[in-house]
């Protein structure tokens, strides 16, 4: 047995992070000299804070020394308490509404290959009542302590600093609900569902097609083959190429549209554009163009205005009062303008005109079979009786359809009479090559006519031209070759 002093036999050490205290009993130490008190003294000398737990651990160590006298023993007798850090308040989005993952998702899809790039989505849409996220509250932390009694401060939980507006609401359970339809946006701690979708860049492969239930603002251009559809207005500040734009209300094309015969615009209300080139479509109400409308096939339901511009080439259908700088071009571009006809109605009329003869032919066929069976009415078999019933039902159905078609046609005519205006003012010049369709007449301009002039139908339905400087009204046939629609290309000029 060692005969050294207790200080030589008992050694207390503290780890560098002060989270453990270890007692070492030297080999050969006399068990009689290894007492609990001496051990606790060694620990106290090493600045270890003696607690009830340490007291027990030391007692256990002393027992072990007595059980194995002379053996070297080393034991951790004290352990510090690490701090429990607070959990910050956080916002967890539902996956489909998470705007923070958009960039990553776009990147994955772009690099994945085989995707429909036109259908890429660069925004998250929510509908009213959608649960878009949940706020998880902050959880406060708990400080820790070293074996020497030093406090280890826990990190405090930070509030999210979430800022909300009226477009979202946080419920009692922390769920965040959209209060209206729109784009989910989370920028600098502010969460909102915006009724306007703003596209800061071009609508192209980086954004995919845009389809939105509110207003859409495109700050740059809409590139070839892309589509922008909005339940409300669409505003494009840059150039629109051969794209498709469908607006539930207004369409504003600040820089114009150059569509190379592949562009489409559909606006339920008004259109304002710098210029339109090779565009097809319709405008539900008024259309205002700053410069030219070139090679377009557009129907305008209300007023058309291009006072300082021109209609060159194509076929414009203008239903309301119209005012244009010039018609046609010096190069005699073939330009057709139909006045006072609602284009959509023409399509319906054509459908009715196609359908009526088909129905009449079907009716004749059914009636013929019916008559044959009817001649032998008394001696019909059960099957023939059923066939007769079936034929009578068909006759009744077809007659009912024909009546409805007739009524629809009458309604179309009434509506057109009520809403369509045959009234066009040309400010500067009508060039050769221009064809005007108005009422039942077609006027072809073979020579140039100087403006300002107004072309309309007079009280008796005849096409006339009014010189807006002198106020003189002349029959349009004095300035153009005028034919009636039915006889167009067959019988020549209109009779006086």
């Amino acid at each position: 047995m060692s005969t050294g002093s207790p200080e030589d036999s008992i050694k207390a050490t503290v780890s560098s992070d002060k989270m453990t205290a270890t007692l070492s009993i030297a080999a050969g130490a006399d068990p009689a000299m290894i007492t609990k008190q001496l051990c606790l003294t060694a620990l106290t000398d090493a600045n270890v804070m003696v607690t009830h737990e340490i007291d027990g651990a030391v007692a256990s160590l002393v027992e072990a020394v007595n059980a194995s006298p002379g053996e070297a023993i080393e034991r951790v007798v004290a352990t510090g308490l690490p701090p429990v850090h607070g959990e910050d308040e956080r916002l967890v989005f539902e996956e489909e509404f998470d705007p923070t993952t958009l960039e990553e998702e776009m990147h994955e899809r772009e690099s994945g290959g085989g995707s429909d790039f036109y259908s890429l989505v660069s925004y998250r849409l929510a509908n009213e009542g959608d649960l878009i996220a949940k706020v998880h509250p902050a959880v406060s932390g708990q400080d820790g302590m070293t074996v020497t009694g030093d406090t280890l401060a826990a990190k405090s939980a930070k509030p999210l600093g979430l800022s909300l507006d009226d477009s979202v609401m946080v419920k009692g359970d922390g769920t965040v609900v959209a209060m209206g339809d729109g784009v989910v946006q989370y920028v600098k701690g502010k969460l909102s569902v915006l009724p306007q979708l703003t596209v800061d860049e071009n609508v192209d492969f980086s954004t995919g097609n845009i389809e939105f239930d509110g207003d859409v603002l495109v700050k740059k251009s809409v590139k070839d083959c892309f589509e922008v559809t909005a339940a409300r207005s669409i505003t494009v500040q840059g150039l629109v190429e051969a794209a498709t734009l469908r607006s539930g209300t207004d369409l504003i094309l600040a820089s114009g549209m150059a569509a190379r015969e592949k562009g489409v615009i559909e606006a339920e209300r008004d259109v304002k554009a710098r210029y339109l080139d090779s565009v097809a479509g319709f405008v539900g109400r008024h259309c205002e163009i700053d410069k030219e409308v070139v090679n377009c096939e557009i129907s305008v339901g209300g007023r058309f205005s291009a006072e300082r511009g021109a209609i060159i080439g194509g076929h414009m259908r203008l239903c309301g009062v119209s005012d244009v700088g010039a018609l046609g071009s010096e190069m005699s571009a073939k330009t057709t303008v139909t006045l006072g006809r609602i284009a959509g109605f023409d399509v319906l009329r054509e459908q009715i005109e196609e359908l009526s003869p088909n129905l009449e032919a079907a009716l004749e066929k059914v009636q013929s079979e019916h008559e044959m069976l009817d001649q032998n009415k008394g001696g019909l078999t059960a099957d023939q009786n059923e066939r007769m019933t079936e034929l009578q039902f068909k006759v009744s159905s077809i007659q009912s359809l024909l009546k409805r078609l007739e009524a629809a046609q009458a309604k179309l005519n009434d509506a057109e009479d009520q809403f369509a205006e045959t009234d066009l003012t040309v400010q500067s010049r009508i060039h050769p090559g221009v064809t005007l369709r108005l009422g039942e007449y077609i006027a072809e301009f073979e020579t140039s006519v100087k403006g300002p002039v107004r072309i309309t139908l007079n009280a008796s339905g005849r096409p006339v031209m009014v010189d807006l400087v002198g106020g003189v009204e002349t029959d349009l046939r004095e300035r153009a070759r005028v034919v009636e629609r039915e006889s167009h290309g067959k019988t020549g000029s209109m009779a006086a």
Partner: protein
Amino acid sequence: MKILLVDDSKTMRKIQRSVLTQLGHTEIEEACDGQDAMSKVGAFGPDLLLVDWNMPNMDGLTFVKKYREMNKDTPIIMVTTESERSRVVEAIKAGVNNYVVKPFTPDVLSQRIDETLTKAGASAG
């Protein structure tokens, strides 16, 4: 109002359904013969039945007799052919409220349905 169409001809059922739809009826069930109808009346609980006379498995007259054993009030219109006209009295005795002879026009069928429902309503009132 719930209406059950009992006819083995799909075409006839289609015609009847179309006329009834035009009259504003939308709760319509179909059965392809008397037996099929017997299996459906309980769950469907019709307020009017249009029943063809000649059908496989169970003809219209047999169906009417069986149906009347459990339901005396719901109006029934029998759809017959000219050759069965002489047996109409037998059908009425069995509990048929009205009848329509094939071939019939949609207007005639509509008129018969209106008549029958008016009478049934009056007697119920």
